[in-house]
């Protein structure tokens, strides 16, 4: 392999890619659990808790249910994990090196973020469990629900930067003219992306795909051992990458140390939203995303066109 090949491998596997985002993501799941515990007047788990969970799951028995499609069942978690590795590599690379990326990486990123729920749907459908099938259908419905307002909200920074679909150009435009968040359309779009983040993470108002009380953790019901660990790791990395994506697109990029505070603020907001809301039914969630957030998304796009 040439030097640039090694650099690329390092980029995707070690520093911003797999290893780094996995460790930070696991620490963030601890933040999530400790904030939830404090909201409920509990002490909460110690810092190493997510790591203990992960090592335990990795070294436990992995069961493939009778009659399940074995290959698809075991490979589906890897699909989500690979997508998240690529996402973290891309996002960090762009933040450190705004000129370095290719045209249209924003679109690639949207599809990579869509691969994680797709992996869940594929894996759950392959497991031959009726509860998993219910969870998979809910996850699919939810995906179709939040993707519309998500794309509408992403149109706002594109319009504001004069038609840039390269993340680097969005960051440069924000460094020159101030973050897109500090305007009416920016605030609306960022709020929409915040709700979408909640749904992509499968956190409480939108956790109907893994509802423990009704469908026994739904999409995850048949997963055990290492493949469950990979799914948990994917979720942890998403908890790291989705707020990072939001900062990159709306809040001026990850350029200075203030970005860490912004980042923690978004994570705590997401966790507080998770702790103070009951679960939606799937039809309520769909209605919320299409007919409420969708309308707000159109309003934000129109406002962005008239430069508000």
């Amino acid at each position: 392999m040439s030097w640039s090949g090694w650099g690329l491998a390092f980029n995707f596997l070690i520093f911003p890619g797999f290893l780094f985002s996995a460790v930070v993501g696991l620490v963030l799941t601890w933040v999530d659990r400790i904030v939830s515990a404090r909201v409920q007047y509990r002490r909460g788990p110690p810092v190493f808790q997510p790591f203990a969970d992960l090592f335990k799951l990795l070294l436990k028995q992995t069961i493939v249910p009778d009659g399940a499609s074995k290959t698809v069942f075991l490979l589906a978690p890897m699909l989500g994990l690979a997508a998240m590795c690529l996402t973290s590599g891309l996002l960090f690379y762009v933040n450190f090196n705004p000129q370095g990326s290719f045209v249209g990486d924003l679109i690639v990123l949207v599809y990579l973020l869509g691969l994680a729920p797709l992996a869940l749907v594929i894996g759950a459908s392959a497991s031959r469990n009726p509860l998993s099938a219910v969870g998979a259908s809910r996850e699919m419905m939810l995906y179709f629900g939040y993707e519309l307002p998500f794309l509408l909200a992403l149109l706002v920074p594109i319009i504001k930067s004069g038609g840039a679909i390269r993340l680097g150009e969005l960051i440069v435009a924000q460094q020159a003219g101030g973050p897109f968040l500090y305007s009416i359309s920016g605030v609306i779009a960022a709020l929409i992306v915040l709700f979408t983040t909640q749904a992509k993470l499968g956190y409480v108002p939108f956790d109907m795909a893994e509802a423990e009380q009704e469908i026994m953790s739904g999409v995850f019901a048949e997963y055990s051992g290492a493949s469950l660990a990979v799914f948990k790791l994917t979720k942890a990395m998403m908890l790291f990458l989705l707020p990072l994506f939001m900062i990159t697109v709306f809040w001026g990029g990850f350029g200075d140390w203030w970005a860490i505070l912004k980042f923690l603020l978004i994570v705590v907001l997401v966790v507080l939203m998770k702790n103070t809301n009951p679960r939606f039914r799937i039809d309520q969630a769909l209605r919320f995303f299409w007919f409420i957030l969708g309308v707000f998304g159109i309003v934000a796009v129109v406002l962005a066109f008239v430069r508000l």
Partner: protein
Amino acid sequence: MSRLGLWGLKKSPWVYHVAAASCNNCDIEILELLTPRYDVERFGVVLVGSPRHADALLVTGVINRKSLPRVMEVYEQAAKPCLVIGVGTCTCSNHMFKNSYNAVGPYDKHLPMHAFVPGCPPKPEAMILGVVKALSKL
């Protein structure tokens, strides 16, 4: 299991609650473990929704001809290594049902039990002690 996995298992035992025809008293006491007063999440204990995720099964109630095959099936579905902890006097013996035609207990005739927690119902502190003792046997 390797030492790392064993450490992980001791630090994060996820429990699945198997209510095998109990009178509900032990079940309510198990739920009390998760309340802020006892907060077992500080030891890494999480109540999970699927036996596939479980590291410990908390079984309650007198085992009878109807519930025995179901409990066995749940145990077979759990990913090993999996602890089985009996909660309540009903699991230790047949309790007040010892002359019943239907009771086929106690549990250790049928399942590899790791700990029993006597009491009707046992106190949450006793259940935490039971889980700790079961884990220290690993």
